[in-house]
């Protein structure tokens, strides 16, 4: 397996090679890296060459594909996110990193599906985060070109691809929604819902989850054709009668409970590809609930995140992509 985790001195040397990179690591280390053609986000959890690891001394660097011909790094505030597709290359793909719990995080979750042209090119990335043991933790992203640490904007690396290659994004999501069961709707888009409709009847979401003795490892899910998008539970706050979430629920969507998994780690691992993807990221909840510290997820490496982006904002998934020859893709289809 290729090496992606480096100490600070090694990381400085890798970045100085002048290639294009996706970078992840603690804020204190990212700010010491040389300027270059890279974007980064804060996180101390990684899936590395030796498996899952939490470290404040390591930086994860993934070299982007050599088929990338041109690129541009841009920053977007919450209001500017809708312009991302306008900045796509004619043929290419884009990598995005958004700071967790920032305005762009909520805006992307709520509105990305409506951005004109969002599906024209592949866009993938992750939501940066912080040490879950640090109650003062704050997520940030980094524009390697300008050397700027950013807390309130998303950073995007737009890439132009050689015309004989195409990027394909896929996800691992072991959860299946119970669409024959309870429906849940929310009157407003929020990270911390209290009011909701259960099967059309007004209810308090925290009280409802407690009443059914809901396993907090299981997300609620909204349907996406024959697959689903997870919304993950951080904490049922019974004192304040609300539920804190890792990604917001969206007004107008219908949510369902996830069916229980037989074996979280095995159900997740069985869906993972058996090849070394060009880049991947994996949700911090999968890292924790699957016990990935010190263990590999087949050959996937990448940051452990507070949210994954595969066109839209996802959670409790693993996102990966590969650049493939168009000719090979056509033969396969």
């Amino acid at each position, binding site marked *: 397996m290729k090496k992606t985790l480096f100490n600070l001195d090694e990381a400085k040397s890798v970045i100085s090679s002048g290639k294009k990179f996706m970078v992840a690591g603690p804020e204190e280390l990212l700010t010491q890296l040389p300027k270059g053609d890279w974007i980064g986000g804060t996180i101390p959890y990684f899936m590395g060459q030796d498996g899952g690891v939490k470290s404040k001394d390591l930086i994860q660097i993934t070299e982007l594909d050599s088929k990338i011909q041109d690129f541009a790094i841009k920053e977007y505030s919450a209001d500017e996110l809708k312009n991302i597709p306008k900045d796509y290359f004619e*043929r290419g793909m884009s990598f995005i990193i958004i700071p967790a719990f920032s305005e762009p995080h909520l805006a992307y979750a709520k509105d990305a*599906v*409506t951005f004109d*042209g*969002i*599906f*024209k*090119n*592949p866009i993938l990335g992750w939501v940066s985060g912080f040490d879950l043991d640090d109650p003062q933790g704050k997520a940030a992203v980094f524009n390697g070109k300008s050397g700027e640490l950013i807390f309130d904007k998303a950073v995007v690396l737009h890439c132009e691809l050689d015309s004989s290659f*195409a*990027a*394909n*994004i*896929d*996800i691992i999501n072991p959860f299946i929604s119970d669409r024959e069961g309870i429906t849940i709707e929310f009157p407003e888009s929020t990270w911390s819902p209290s009011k909701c409709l259960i099967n059309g009847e007004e209810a308090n979401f925290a009280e409802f989850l407690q009443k059914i003795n809901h396993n907090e490892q299981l997300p609620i899910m909204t349907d*996406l*054709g*024959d*697959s689903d998008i997870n919304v993950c539970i951080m904490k049922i706050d019974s004192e304040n009668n609300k539920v804190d979430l890792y990604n917001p629920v969206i007004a*107008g969507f219908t949510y369902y409970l996830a069916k229980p998994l037989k074996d979280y780690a095995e159900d997740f691992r069985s869906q993972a590809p058996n090849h070394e993807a060009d880049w991947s990221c994996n949700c911090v909840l999968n890292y924790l609930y699957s016990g990935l510290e010190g263990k590999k997820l087949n050959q996937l490496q990448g940051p452990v995140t507070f949210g994954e982006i*595969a*066109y*839209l904002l996802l959670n409790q998934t693993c996102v990966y992509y590969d650049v493939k020859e*168009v000719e090979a*893709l*056509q033969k396969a*289809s």
Partner: protein
Amino acid sequence: MIEVPPKSDLRWQQFIKNGENCTFSSLATKMMYKRCQMLLKLNPDKPEKFNEAVAIAHEYFTNNKAIAESDLKIALAA
């Protein structure tokens, strides 16, 4: 290799109307179709949104033919 028909091709309209019964292999196709469904659901009294949905699907398949060719065949048969 299958060609992406022009937006005026009636199969696009059939796809927007009947695509929910299709099983697509590409994550992007599933998400794109969800967007088309949302557009129509949120604007039931705006018939022009149907053409917008057709344009979204057409643009998607035009730009992603390499990764979504098998889904294009399914979409055009919807």
